[in-house]
Structures are given as C-alpha cells and as structure tokens.
C-alpha cells in the first residue's frame, strides 16, 4: 500500500509529538472535564459473592453497591452501564424471575442496560412483568419489538448529559435464532448489528451532536467464525468511541483498541461475568468536549467476608 506523502508526514509528526508531549503534563488544575464509566456484563443473577472455585470470595451485589457508592463520592460524572444477561444462573432467578436483580441495580442507580439472550429466558412476558422494578433504561437498537408487548418500552438510544458533555448510548443484541427458543423471543425481529450501529451512531453524532458515542453490546468480543462481534462492529464503524461488551464472558484486564473506518480509535471493554469485576474507564475531555485521555481499569470486587 502506498501511503500518500502528506499522510506519511502527518502520521510521523503525530507519533513524534505524541512522544515528546505526554498528556499527563497537562495541568490538572485547569479543571478538566472527566467522565467515569463503570460497567458490568453477564451478572447472571449472582447476588452473593462466589462461594467456591476460582472466583471464591469475589463478586456480590451488596459489595458492588458499596464500591460504586465510594466511587460516586469521589467522582461527579459517573455513568453506570450493563451489557446484558442480567438473568439466569442462580435460584434467585428461578424463584423471582429477575425482580431482585432489577431492584438492586436500581438501588445502585444504574443508568442503562442492554438485553442479553438470557434476559429472554422467561419469555418476553417474563421480562416485561419484571420491568416495573427497573428504574433504569433498557436500550437496544437492533431488535425490533414493535410486534411484541415490549413495544415502546425499550429505547433505541438514550442521550446522557454530564458536565455539558453529551454521551449518546445505543445497544446491540446477539442473533436470537438458534440461541433462544422462538417461543421465548416471540415476534422480536433481529436486524444486522453493523448496519444498525453505523446508522444509529452517525445519527447520534451528527443529528444529536453527541460528544461521545457508547455502544452497549451483547454480541460477544470475537469469534473464530464470521459471526458478528464487538471487534467487527468497532472495525466497521466510524463514530463509535466505546463498546462495552458481554456474552463471551471475557475478562479484559486492558481495554482493546480497534482502528475504525476513518482511522480513529474505538475502545472495546468487557468485565468477565457474575459481577466478579467492575469495569472502569475514566475519560478526560478538553474544552471542546473532545476525548483527550482514557484510563482503563478492571479490578476484582472482593468481599470483606472472605478476606
């Protein structure tokens, strides 16, 4: 591939100035805007810390609640998001159908969640019946619920405003056919995630003037097959800044950086499963509300009862 000369010089300068001018040197007293995004995925009804196995003593929703409270005390602009599969995995789901999970997420002040395949495990009706306990929004852009009882209850996207920064959040769900029984998902229509992602994200950026665009995805990080995944969505996008993923239960100790269609960075993050981890990304913005720096963290939620 022949890179044109201008592009080459430009890239070279970028690389060298990048080295010589670390952003850390930017004066912190100049009141930088900071957005803290906390995220979970595939919590699978794990209410209590794991009692045995590799993750013994980790997780727990009451422990997560404490941690989130302490982070909120130190940070003004927090967005708390979940990437789906809230349901299924412990008797708490079999007994109460997700009621407790939704109540606890509401208590923690989750801002939004997307739907995972297991969130259909009690059918659309089972999900709809418990929705009244969720004081946060469900966002999905590629499932068409128009012919179901969920019509109008799932947002295509939502815009959050924190310290004058506009954050557009949209959601992507995995193909249900073959993964979830037809009788459970009913007349839900699955649309192509990449097409939908590009359509919604450009709408959020250009029509709604969002400063940052976040995709909540339950597609899964990546596959050996051609199956659509977070990395594929990221690569084929041009407006998405961050994908918070789920489904593959991937523990990404460090966020993955993907280069998109217009050579910009897309961050892809995922926080394992079972509420073992809380993902954290701190975004530093400049005066023009452009992202200048990102700090990525994925650490264990440890229970005091086990340590």
């Amino acid at each position: 591939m022949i890179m044109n000369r201008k592009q080459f010089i430009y890239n070279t300068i970028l690389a060298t100035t990048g080295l010589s001018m670390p952003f850390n040197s930017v004066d912190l007293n100049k009141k930088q805007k900071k957005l803290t995004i906390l995220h979970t995925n595939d919590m699978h009804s794990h209410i209590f810390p794991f009692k045995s196995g590799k993750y013994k003593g980790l997780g727990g929703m009451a422990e997560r609640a404490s941690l989130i409270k302490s982070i909120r005390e130190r940070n003004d602009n927090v967005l708390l998001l979940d990437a789906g599969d809230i349901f299924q995995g412990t008797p708490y789901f079999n007994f109460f159908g997700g009621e407790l999970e939704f109540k606890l997420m509401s208590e923690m002040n989750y801002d939004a969640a997307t739907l995972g395949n297991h969130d259909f495990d009690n059918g659309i009706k089972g999900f709809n019946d418990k929705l009244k306990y969720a004081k946060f929004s469900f966002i999905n852009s590629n499932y068409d619920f128009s012919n179901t009882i969920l019509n109008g209850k799932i947002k295509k996207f939502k815009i959050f405003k924190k310290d004058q920064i506009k954050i557009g959040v949209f959601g992507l769900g995995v193909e249900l056919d073959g993964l979830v029984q037809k009788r459970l998902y009913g007349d839900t229509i699955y649309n192509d995630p990449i097409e939908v992602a590009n359509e919604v994200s450009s709408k959020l950026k250009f029509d709604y003037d969002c400063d940052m665009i976040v995709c909540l995805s339950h597609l899964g990080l990546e596959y050996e097959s051609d199956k659509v995944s977070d990395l594929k969505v990221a690569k084929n996008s041009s407006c998405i800044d961050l994908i918070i993923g789920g489904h593959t239960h991937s523990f990404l100790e460090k966020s993955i950086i993907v280069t998109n269609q217009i050579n910009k960075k897309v961050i892809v993050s995922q926080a394992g499963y079972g509420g073992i981890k809380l993902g954290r990304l701190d975004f530093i913005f400049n005066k023009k509300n452009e992202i200048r720096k990102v700090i990525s963290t994925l650490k264990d939620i440890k229970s005091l009862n086990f340590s």
Partner: protein
Amino acid sequence: MRNFLVSIFFISLFFSCQSEYKIEPSFNSYIDVSVPPDSITLKIINPYKKSVDSVMNEILCFNKTKMEKGKPESLLGNFVADLCIYETNSYDMIDFCLLNNGGLRFPLDYGDITRGDIYKLMPFDNKMVIVKIFKEDILEIFNYFEKKGGQPISKLRVEIENNKVVNHNLELMKDTFHVLTSDYLANGGDNMTFFVDKEVENLNVMLRDLIIEHCKRKDTITSALDQRIYDYE
C-alpha cells in the same frame, strides 16, 4: 520562522484530531480494596434470601461418587441421562436419551446433595420432550458425536474409531426412533439440527424436577462409566 509555523500547524492538527488520545492503565488502587457489603442493599436482599434458603437447603439424598461432566462419557452425564430414562419408563416407545454437556452447569460433590445443588447443576427451566426422528437422522446424530466427541446418552451405545462411528446398538430395521431430550435441544439448541421441525411430545416436566424427584426417591445416588461411548483412540 517557517519551521516554527509549520510545527505550530502540526501541533494544532494534532489537537484537532479527536481520536488521537492516549489510553493508559490505571494506577488507582481503590477498586482493588476489599469492600464491605452495603447495608441498604443487604436489607433489600434479606427477605429474598430467607425464602430461597429455606427451600434450597433441603437435603435430597447422599451422593457416593463425585460426579463431573466430560467426554466421551462422564459420571455426571451418565447419571443424568440414565435417571431421565428411569424416571420416564412409563413411555415405552423411547429408544434412547440424548442430552448435552453444555446444559450440565455444575458438578455434584461427594456427600449430601441439596435442592440448591441440583439448581446449580441444572439452572435452566428446560422441559422434557420425546422427539420422533427418522432413520437418516440417526446418521446425523452419529456425525454429531464424531464432531463433538460425545454427549450424555442413555440406552444408546456407540463405538468410535478414527472419528467415525463403527458400531452401535440401534435396530436400524426400524424407520422411526423416539428420542428423550430437552425442549432446548429439540429446538436445535447446541447445534442439534437433526431435531428441528420434528414431531415432539411434551412430557410437561422440567429436567431439573426430574433430577430432584429421582434424588428424593433414591436416598443415595451413584454413577459409573460403562463405555457407552467408546473411542478406540
């Protein structure tokens, strides 16, 4: 001077390009500290916990053999598939039982087995069904075994050599077969495409409840390997 202007130009370009930001790992340690459970949250959980615990702590039986899943056959897979056949013996048309390892979510430890242990083993509300398949589907099932390297089965025996099923115990003079499985698999779950669009009889009982009933009836449970799927390699 010219050089100075050029560098100013590039530096401003640099800052105008939104995506060229830096990503770094955090040196914050406060996520890594142990945290006490939040008391308000615990208050919400408590009534739910009480009602779950009172049901889940019930001891159903005593397990004499630690059972885990595996391939080609396993103690856990054999136990579950065998009890499915045993507990549905009033349906005498059943030729064999086929389940999947993916559906067995937790091993059974040696010792007392509680209702909670069975919920961990089988958290899904999968229901038992009998699927009527044709002779040609049997070959598909064998192909499936060759690819997957084994799944929990009962009343069926297959021998595999060089990734091919070379022997089995089915009476292939028949044209149709009745397979006991779960509704999840009967709908093509875990790539069991040979079940799709077949005649299905619903037994109106969940796999988990079948296991629970079996444990209660048996007092003590055990399992053994019997080379029902035998791989010559």
